[in-house]
Every structure is written in structure tokens, then in C-alpha cells.
């Protein structure tokens, strides 16, 4: 059994390995990065380290949140880099029994399958486990028109 942190984006529950989570922050001031991939929400300062924020809604191909909506940042570490996942809300720590994990259904949207590592059935519904390293593997920024 290993621990995951539950997060919500839209109506869906997701989970990320607690071992990779470094912090959970409330709404932060973000510095936008011009010409960056669309999912990059900006940069933020976490105790002197620069964290790249990724909007999970855009990463998942969901419509952006209504303006003024509440968001949370889940700071995760991948390699030596820190990333903040911009999510709608953060839930509890979820102990997950690996034996009960299900493979990602092939009918799932391509964009979701690319970053999901498994699906975990719970009494309240299905939780999609996210693979951080694949989640942050974004296409290089688009080029400015020259």
C-alpha cells in the first residue's frame, strides 16, 4: 500500500504519489512565460526556488476554470525540478493498494491516457493516478512568428 494525494479537476478525481509532493499552496501569483506551451500557467517562487506551474485543466484538455474560481497548487518534484499542478481542489491522503489498480482503459481520451498510469476504483468512484514525469513532458514552446 502506498500513499497518494487526492486532487480534483473538473468532476474527476485524480491522485499523485505523496512521495513526489513537496507542498500544497493556495492561489499564487504567477509570472507568465510568453510563448510557452499553453499548459504552462507561469512561474512562482517557493522559498527561493523557481517552480513551473502547469494548469492541469489545460493539460487534460478541459475548459479553463471560470474567472475568479478557487484553485490550489500541488507542488511536485520530478528529477531535480519543481512543478506546481494547478488544480481545482486538494483532498486527503489516499492509501492505495497496488493490487487493486486497474489498467488505464483504452477508450479513455488520448490526452488523458498519455499522463495516466492507472485507475483506482473506490466506493466513491474511479480515481485516475497521474504519472508526473509524463505529465511534465510537454512539447517545446511554440515559435514566435518571424
Amino acid at each position, binding site marked *: 500500500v502506498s500513499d497518494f494525494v487526492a486532487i480534483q479537476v473538473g468532476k474527476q478525481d485524480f491522485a499523485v504519489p505523496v512521495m513526489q509532493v513537496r507542498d500544497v499552496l493556495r492561489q499564487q501569483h504567477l509570472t507568465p512565460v510568453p510563448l510557452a506551451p499553453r499548459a504552462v500557467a507561469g512561474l512562482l*517562487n517557493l522559498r527561493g526556488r523557481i517552480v513551473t506551474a502547469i494548469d492541469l485543466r489545460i493539460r487534460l484538455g478541459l475548459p479553463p476554470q471560470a474567472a475568479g474560481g478557487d484553485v490550489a497548487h500541488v507542488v511536485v518534484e520530478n528529477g531535480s525540478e519543481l512543478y506546481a499542478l494547478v488544480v481545482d481542489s486538494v483532498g486527503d491522503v489516499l492509501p492505495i493498494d497496488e493490487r487493486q489498480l486497474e489498467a488505464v482503459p483504452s477508450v479513455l481520451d488520448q490526452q488523458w491516457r498519455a499522463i495516466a498510469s492507472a485507475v483506482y476504483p473506490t466506493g466513491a468512484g474511479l480515481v485516475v493516478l497521474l504519472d508526473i514525469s509524463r505529465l511534465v513532458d510537454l512539447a517545446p514552446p511554440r515559435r514566435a512568428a518571424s
Partner: protein
Amino acid sequence: MDELLREFIAETNEHLALFERDLVSLEQAREDARLVDDIFRNVHSIKGACSFLGLKRLESLLHAAENALGKLRDEALPASVIVTATLLGACDRVKTIVAALAQDGHEPDGGDADIVARLELGMRPCAVTAPAPVPAISERAAAQPTAANTIRVNLDTIERLMVEVSELVLARNQVMQTLRGRTDPEAALALQRWSQVTSDLQESVIKARMQPIGQAWAKLPRMVRDLARDLGKKIDLKLEGGETALDRQVLELVKDPFTHLMRNAADHGIETPAQRRHAGKSETGMVTLSARQEGSAIVITLTDDGRGIDPEGVRAAIRRGGFASDAELAIMSAHQLLQFVFHPGFTTAAKVTNVSGRGVGLDVVRSNAEKIGGTVEVASSLGRGTRFTIKIPLTLAIVPALLLECGGQRFAIPQTAVAELMHSSAEYPIEWIHGAPVLRLRGSLLPLVVLGDVLCLGESRRDEEQRLIVIIGYGARRFGIMVDGVDDAEEIVVKSLAPMLRGARFFAGSTILGDGSVVLILDPGPLAVLAGTVASDEPARAVPLPMLGGSAGGGGLLLFHAGSEAPKALRLISLLRIEEIASGQIDHVDGKPVVFYRDAALPLHLFGALPAGERQLLLIAAHDGRMCGFLADAVIDTVADMPALDRAQAGPGVLGVATIAGQPVEIVDAVHYMKAASARLPAPARSAA
């Protein structure tokens, strides 16, 4: 690997570098007893360490070398070229063994009987056959590490110290900013003291990372000696300012460039003794490498007194490599041509030697220098020599930066790249040529980059009269960045971007400011490419306008001869630039003359027949987005103020006639020709910028 062995290898490599350098000096100053002493001691101490560590092969090899040196020292025989060559051979073998030792942790198999025999043989006086030319190495590098008062510290420790101290500086800035004007005097005093200590600490740690640049040069004397021998040339290497200290990290990055430049000078620069004699120079070529500190930068120059770079050779090579079109080539100045040597894949060498000429090298020199915010320039005089100037920052850890504002966002740009700040004004207006903004400044045309547009920040304020322009000097290239505002200068610590953002070509990284906010650091290199400065507006290309500037911009005139005996004049305000072009660039469209200028057909007006000769003087006038060229025979002068105009003689294309210095001068109505031309020419393609 054993810590002891690791330390031995590091130490031995240092000793070997000295050994090598001294041997080359010895070869020069045949009978310098002190030098022999130094070399002897060096070899002896390596040998001592070898026997302590039980490195038998090294020990016996060094023993033989020591014996040979012992005989030298006792002046049993003079240091002939053969002797030093033999000793250098021994040195090479020791290096090979030490390299294997570093890799495998033990001495490689095999014996050194060959070297030992030669060492013994070489020490016996014998007839010396014609010695190969030998380079003289003057000035024994000043950077002699003193044994006392130093300790060996792991590099990681220093690096960690540096990172921590950088964070401390940032935290200090943050505290100062938060508490500004809010603390009682006592606390303020303590704060100030703390701040001072932090700055001192920062300086000390930076110093601890500093190394004399001479360390990066240690291998050069040997290299030049071997090169001279291989190429049959005589080369004197002079090293100056080897004690100049700079950041270890920077030093690592410029090591290779030195090697490239030195090979280049030896292979392409210095001529053979016969050629030099023929050219009336001394047979021995001189290569000088010097370093000095200039503010927060280190300036390194490599000068040779060789054949120089032939602009025609460069021109041919550019054509061969397809780096520029014939039309572009035709209007390039010698200075501009020269800068192509830094182009990837560029080579003038007709044949590839094992020394250089493979078309790699100088582009690496430039990219290495630019990677760390440095610049490289080349100047050359045919037959007299070439000078490369590398300018690099003292340290990369903490960079002074200027904060810019654009589209409601702040950006940082390294101060080293900023040449000056200015406002556009009525006197220095921003002008648009087919959508590309330019600024006329001190007689040359400065391409501009609209930062807001480049970064897609929306809402550009291009119609506003007063725009802030940050003029960037990037090597020989100059261009302006149009921004909304300029903030403070601040010292920043460069942090790299996340991998997904590393492709963001306009950013060199990000940083955290004193107020805790994150800003992106602009990379001047890609912006320079965008400004198209590589193939355009360097001052050297534009014919300088005498006296342009000051009050001359508004009512001034440019006097020139064209077609007729009487001089003509063009109002400076409509004059964009003066350029020399090749006659071949002039063509006809629908029977009207045009000149091919920057990928577009520029309407041209001739005041008479096309002047004879290969080169033509082109005056380019612009007004309200329209352009027109005029051919002139010669530029006479400028006058600061518009004299009284006799409009009675005005006509199509003539504003009137003025009397200047007692002579009637026809004032050309440039706008008339532009209007006439734009009616018959389709709009040229939008230029690249």
C-alpha cells in the same frame, strides 16, 4: 578510487603541466640552471609520490627522467633540442599512464624501455642534426602556485558555498526591501552591518572560485611548439596577464576557445619563414595572448603578426558555402565580411590540414563566449596580422541586470548586453520600413525589435511618440529593443528554466528579485537574430554621415554631386542612410531603374546617366513608409540648417534652390520621387525583421 590516488592524480597533472611548460622554456633558453632546477624538483616530487603509492612503472620512468635531468643540472651537457624532445616524450608517456591510472585505478600494463633507453642515449653528447624550428616562449607564466598557504578543497564544496551565498544575497535583498523605512534606527544599523557582511561574504566566495587565467593557458606553449614543428613555422608565443583571475566556471568554458584560436593563428595566421622573409618580416611569427580585467569583464586578445585575413578569400568562401547572396556580398564592408569567420561551417582553408580547416572552431568560439554573455570580434589587416578580442564576464554566479517593463510584465536583461538607453523623440523618431521599425542614430540605422510583439504580449503602443529603446550591443551587432519602461538595475542569480521551457528561445533563464517576484531573463542572442543584425546594420557598413545629430536632424541638408556640375541637396530628415552598392545591383523594371536592396526592389532615381565604375553611392530616403534611392557621384558635406529657399525655381522633384557657400544648390524633393515610384512599383515584400 582511493582518495589518496585521486589526490595524487590531480597533483601530478598540475606538476606535469609545469614540467611541460618549463621544458619548452628550457628548449628556448638552453642553459638556464634555475629552470633545470625547477624541472628537477618537479619530477622528483612526482617520483616521490609514485614510490609512496607503489606505482612502479611511473617510478622507474620518472627515475630515468630524473637521472637525465640530474646530468643536465650538473652541466654535464647542454640542453639540446633532442634532450628536451626526449624529456617531452617522457612527459607524454607519464601523462598517458596517469590518464589510464585515473580511469582504471591501476597502472596500465607495458613497459617504457624505449623511453628509458632514449633518455639514457639522449644524455650522451652526440651530433645534433639540424634542429627543427623552435618557438620561443617568453614570460614564464606568473601563476606559480605557492605550496604554502593553500589547501585543496573539493569543487563541490565551493559550488555549494556559492549557491548558498547567492541565496543569502537574495534573502538579504528581500529583507531590505520589506523593511525599508520601517525599522528603528538601532535595527537599521544592525541590518546595514549584516548587509555589508553579506556583500563581503559574497565577494570572498566569488574570489575563492577565481582562478588565474594562466591555468587555461598552461598547455598552449607546448601546443604552439608542436604546431610550429608540424607546420615548419617559427612561432614566438607571448603570454601576458596570465595572473588575471576569473570564475572557474567561466574559465572552463573558455579553455577550448583558446585552443581553437591558437591553432587558427598558427595554421592560418602565421606564414612560413620563407613567406615571411619574402614579405619583409622577421622569420619568426609572433602570437600574443593577453588578458586584462575591465570592470566586471575580462578582455582577452589574441594577436598575430601573420598574413591577416584576406577579405577576397572570405568573400569567395562565403560564396562557396552559400552563406550570403551575391547581392548581399556586394554591399558588405570588409568588417562585415570578416565576421563571417564565426559562421558555422565557414572555412577559408583550401585544404583541410590536421591542425585546422575542418570548418569547426570559430563558430564554437563565438557560441561558447555568447553562452556566458560574452562577445568575440575579429579585426584584421591584410599582410599585417589578425586580432581576436574575446570579452567575457568575470563571473556567472551573480549578474548585474536591468529590469525592463513590457506588456505589464517585467523582464531582466544582463547589463553587459545593454549599450545605452534612449527615448525616441522628434529628433530620433522611430521609422517604419514595410512594417519593420528602425531608428536613425548617429549616422547609422539601428534595427529595432518590438518586444511586446515578439513575445506576443498583445497591445503594442507603436504609435506613441516617445518610446523607450534599450540599445543592445551584442558583439559587433547592435540593435534596439522597444519596451514600455525601464525599472531598477538589480543583481540577479540566474536560474535555469524547466526542461519544457528550455526551447523558449528568447529566455536565458529566470530569477527571483528582491521583492520575491519571479522574472524571466531575456537572451540577447536570439533577439539579435530576430533583428536581422547579422547581415545588416553595423556602423562599419554605413558611410558615416558627417555631423549628423544634434540640431542637424531637422532642417539639415546633405550636399552631394549627381549628374550635374552644380551640387544637389537632400533634406537630412528624409535621408535614411548612405550606402555603397555594386553597379550589378541596379536593374530595370518596366524600363525604370531599381536597386535590389535587402531582398526588395527599391525604386531608384538617377540624376543623369548611370555613372561608370563598379561601385555606386546610394542615398536612401524614406518618408511615411515609402522609400526611394538616389545615385550620387560623391557626398560633399552636410549643413546644419536649412537655408532660405528660392521657391520660384521649384518644379517636379525640386523643392527649390538655395544658396550655400555662394553656390546655387538644388534641393531634391525626395517625396516626389517616392510617390512617383510607389505608383508604378508593387509594394515590396515585407522585410525579415
